[in-house]
């Protein structure tokens, strides 16, 4: 038994001219919560459907629990799935919905009853067993959906945007509830979402997808702190991108000239003088300083062109010359007014080169 539960090996899927999945390679470990994250149309749903068997990849293989299931029909794959619109059986009670997977498997009545009630208790819905789905709120319906998916202890739990039909507050609560449940049961879970905050909050690892390909796989903080590409940096959190040329390089550091200004950027690999670089920095990593004071490294002069009060922070647009504008977010302890001259400091540790 390997420690990999689900494996996509070079799977591709084409719909007419559209290449929905382009040679995906993905290994999901046992007990891991892996999120497929990306904008709509990035291929995450197709990838999920390759795992469920609702889509057969044109090329490549799908393995679940070390078995090649590429051509195995969905109902034989022993999966549990939670849907965006809940997809409960409207003609069945909560109890019957949760019992369904056991009923299909001809489980003995007594054991089945015990298992259903145990699962309902797990999601705190045991007092609703006789209700019909239409009598429940969205959050309750989704919890029943979760119970139905988990009741027969499937190998894998698949969650297809399970929270996007819930309101913001409930969504946040459910995040933790799902994460906690998955941890406690130790089940392998694949979570599909377009919501980066959800992905960061819930996942053990995130696979960021774009245009049918996986751009980057990593833990939430790797994805957030060290995005490899402009797409990943831009999709997860807020970003500034500065285009420049490497003018000097000294092992750990490179100096990049951006629009006549020099910026020190850590260079993990060998930076070559003359290279075009795209430097990325998060708005909340940038410091705003008054014009008076000791000069420090990586500081640029600018003018506040716009500010927005966001409660816990202030969002500034700072113009650097005529062509460049930076987005800066501060905690608002020191405030600047629109039109005010400021010094902008980009701490070298927060700057990193990314690919286009």
């Amino acid at each position, binding site marked *: 038994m390997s420690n990999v539960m689900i494996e996509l090996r070079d799977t591709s899927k084409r719909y007419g001219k559209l290449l929905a999945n382009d040679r995906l390679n993905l290994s999901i470990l046992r007990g891991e919560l892996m999120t497929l994250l990306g904008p709509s149309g990035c291929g995450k749903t197709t990838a999920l459907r390759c795992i*469920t068997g*609702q889509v057969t990849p044109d090329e490549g293989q799908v393995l679940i629990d070390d078995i090649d299931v590429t051509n195995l029909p*969905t*109902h*034989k*794959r*022993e*999966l*549990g*799935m939670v*849907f*965006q*619109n809940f*997809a*409960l*059986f*409207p*003609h069945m009670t909560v109890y019957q919905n949760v019992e*369904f*997977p056991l*009923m*299909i*498997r001809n489980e003995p009545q007594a054991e089945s009853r015990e298992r259903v009630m145990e699962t309902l208790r797990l999601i705190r819905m045991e007092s609703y067993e006789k209700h*019909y*789905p*239409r009598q429940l709120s969205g959050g309750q319906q989704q919890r029943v*959906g979760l119970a*139905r*998916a988990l009741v*027969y202890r499937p190998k894998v739990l*698949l969650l297809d945007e399970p929270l996007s039909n819930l309101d913001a507050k409930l969504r946040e609560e459910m995040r933790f509830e799902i994460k906690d449940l998955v941890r406690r049961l130790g089940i392998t879970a694949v979570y599909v979402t377009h919501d980066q905050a959800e992905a960061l909050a819930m996942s053990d690892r995130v696979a960021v997808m774009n245009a049918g390909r996986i751009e980057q796989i990593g833990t939430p903080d790797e994805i957030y702190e060290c995005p490899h590409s402009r797409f990943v940096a831009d999709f997860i959190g807020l970003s500034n991108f500065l285009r420049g040329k490497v003018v000097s390089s000294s092992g750990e550091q490179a100096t990049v000239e951006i629009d006549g200004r020099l910026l020190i950027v850590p260079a993990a690999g060998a930076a070559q003088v003359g290279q075009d670089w795209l430097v990325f920095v998060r708005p909340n990593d940038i410091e705003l300083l008054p014009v008076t004071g000791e000069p420090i490294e990586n500081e640029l002069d600018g003018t506040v062109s716009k500010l927005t009060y966001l409660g816990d922070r202030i969002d500034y647009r700072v113009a650097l010359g005529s062509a460049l504008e930076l987005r800066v977010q501060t905690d608002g302890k020191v405030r600047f007014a629109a039109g005010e001259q400021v010094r902008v400091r980009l701490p070298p540790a927060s700057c990193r080169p990314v690919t286009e």
Partner: protein
Amino acid sequence: MSDAPSRRQNLITLLLLSPGLAGFFGLFFYPMLVTLERSLHPEGQTQGWTLENYAVLFRDSDFSRVILLTFFLAISSTLLSIALSVPLALLLRRKPAGHRLLRMTVLVPITVPGLIGAFGLLLFWGSRGWFNLSMMPLLGRTEPIQVNYTLVGLVIFYVWHYFSYTATTTLSTLEGLDPAIEEAATVAGATPSQVLRHVVIPLIMPGILSGSVLSFMAAFGAFSIPLVTGGSLRPLAVSIYKQIEVFTPARWSAASAMAAVMATLQVIFLAIYMRVLRRPTA
């Protein structure tokens, strides 16, 4: 203060309703009343009250046979329509090549006038029709298969003419079904036939029922099809007509009594239909 405008609005509503109400009373309610009155006069008279016309009907074994035949035709054609509609709807939902044409074809029987359709059926299923021309060599028969004017033939013709109702309502309910619900059942481990049995059929039942009650009622009151293709098989509507056409002088009172019985039965079916429609669908 607020009375005046609302009273005026009521008046306007009444005025707007009046053509409809007049039509309803003149074209529906009045003829019904006249029929009922007719059925309570002795045969051939316009005065004097009697229940004899009804008593005759219920003593007459011919009339019970007519009622039985009418029910048999309506029920069997409705059941066959369901058996035909469900697979057809399941097929059409997948939008196979030519599904648009098929969808239109399903609606043809209700758009073709019954009389025209009946003559068309007689030609198709007749001894020199396409059915026999193709089946006789195939089955190696020298004698044509008799379909017209038989009970089986009548059931086939009924199904042809009335199955559109069931097919349309079944299809529209099926297409209104959230595909994720079936996916949920499949992922949970249900085979395609289990999905059908435990999820799809129960969920489209209201659609099947509402169409079926409609087609049942239409079949119960069928006239042109059995008149032209039934031969000696005469369901209710045809029997009523024969009271007037065959007998001289026409037996208006007997016909009216039969019509009253038929109308009563239809009202009962209608009440059932309304209940079916009102049943909460999820």
